[in-house]
């Protein structure tokens, strides 16, 4: 397997690589697989992306499934039409996904707009700051339709449905429906409209 680097403007027709670097503007027209993918420039992929490690410090738009062992987002990652699956996701930037995001562990300090986030441990602490990247999100809170995990910790999140075993709703959240089967704590500054489940207040 070979390494490939885009430093100016480059076009790939998919395939399998060891290391893929995009520092300029890269476009991929088919499915791509690599051990290590780092995007520091702009990358558009119309196929699926599979990687051991995928880091997005620039701007990436993927139009099919993303599958990685670890995904780090410090820039803006947009997933259109596909799902995002990873063992571990860390987001300091922005993730926009209209499909499901599934991860064993997801930690976000940036902004996530997604239809669904599911997994084992989900932590989203979105505090609006005025860094360039977060400003691109243009929202007061991370906005997620459904969050479902064994353990959930949220702040600065708007969600329609939150289902979990142990749930901590931190400050500045608006949750329509919450189901909890373990321990539950809700910060006084957050609004949770319907609560169900056999939970105990932490």
């Amino acid at each position, binding site marked *: 397997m070979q390494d490939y680097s885009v430093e100016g403007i480059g076009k790939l027709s998919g395939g399998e690589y060891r290391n893929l670097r995009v520092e300029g503007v890269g476009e991929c027209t088919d499915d791509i697989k690599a051990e290590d993918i780092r995007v520091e420039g702009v990358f558009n992929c119309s196929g699926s992306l599979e990687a051991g490690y995928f880091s997005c410090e620039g701007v990436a738009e993927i139009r099919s499934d993303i599958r990685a062992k670890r995904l780090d987002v410090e820039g803006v990652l947009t997933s259109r039409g596909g799902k995002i699956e990873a063992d571990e996701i860390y987001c300091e930037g922005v993730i926009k996904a209209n499909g499901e995001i599934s991860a064993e562990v997801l930690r976000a300090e940036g902004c996530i707009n997604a239809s669904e986030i599911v997994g*084992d441990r989900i932590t989203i602490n979105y505090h609006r700051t005025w860094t360039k990247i977060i400003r691109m999100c243009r929202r007061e809170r991370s906005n997620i339709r459904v969050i479902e995990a064994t353990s959930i910790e949220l702040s600065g999140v708007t969600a329609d*449905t939150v289902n979990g075993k142990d749930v901590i709703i931190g400050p500045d959240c608006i949750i329509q429906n919450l189901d909890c089967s373990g321990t539950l704590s809700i910060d006084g500054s957050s609004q949770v409209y319907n609560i169900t489940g056999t939970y105990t207040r932490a």
Partner: protein
Amino acid sequence: MNLISKKDLLAITGISYGQLYRWKRERLIPEEWFIKQSAYTGQETFFPREQILSRIQSILDMKDKYSLEELARMLSPQNTATSIKWDDLYEIEEIDTELINELKNLTGSEECSFMGVIFIAAISMSAGKLGLNNNRCADIVSRSIPALRKLKGDNIVCSIIDTGNEYHTVFTQGSAQVLFDEDVEVIEQLSLSEIADRIKLKYKGRLAL
């Protein structure tokens, strides 16, 4: 289709959201089994009851013996040998040996497709309940073999129907529902995918499954 909600599934099996979604990511649970339906709380996910309960039991039974990758390989319908020699079927205790003898003579071929083997096991296990002797089982199997060769993938169900003077088989895949006129009686429904999982897990390493 008999469905179970996600909440009930977790309560009955004792598994966590994390385990459910981990197994989905590892392709141990097919994506098609996550059926989304609208509910008063927005949207709720349901599963085909028998298939998901059987699959989760298999995973729980095997997860300490095999890695998730190994389990995924074993449970994936894509990773199964395409054909199996008739003589290897004697290893499968779910299949009546007399039925294998009948089929060897009747078909004249040396091998049988994987889904064919699963159907033979399924009908052999249900023969007593359906009042079928080996002769009639062999007749149904031999008529079904061409259709069975074309079946691949998950969620395959065989309906055995009585048209009045003969038993016939109807194979469906996915959530498709087949309705019959009132002269046709569905006397048994066999989930071949569930039986395939059980047979593959039980005979792993002993057969080319």
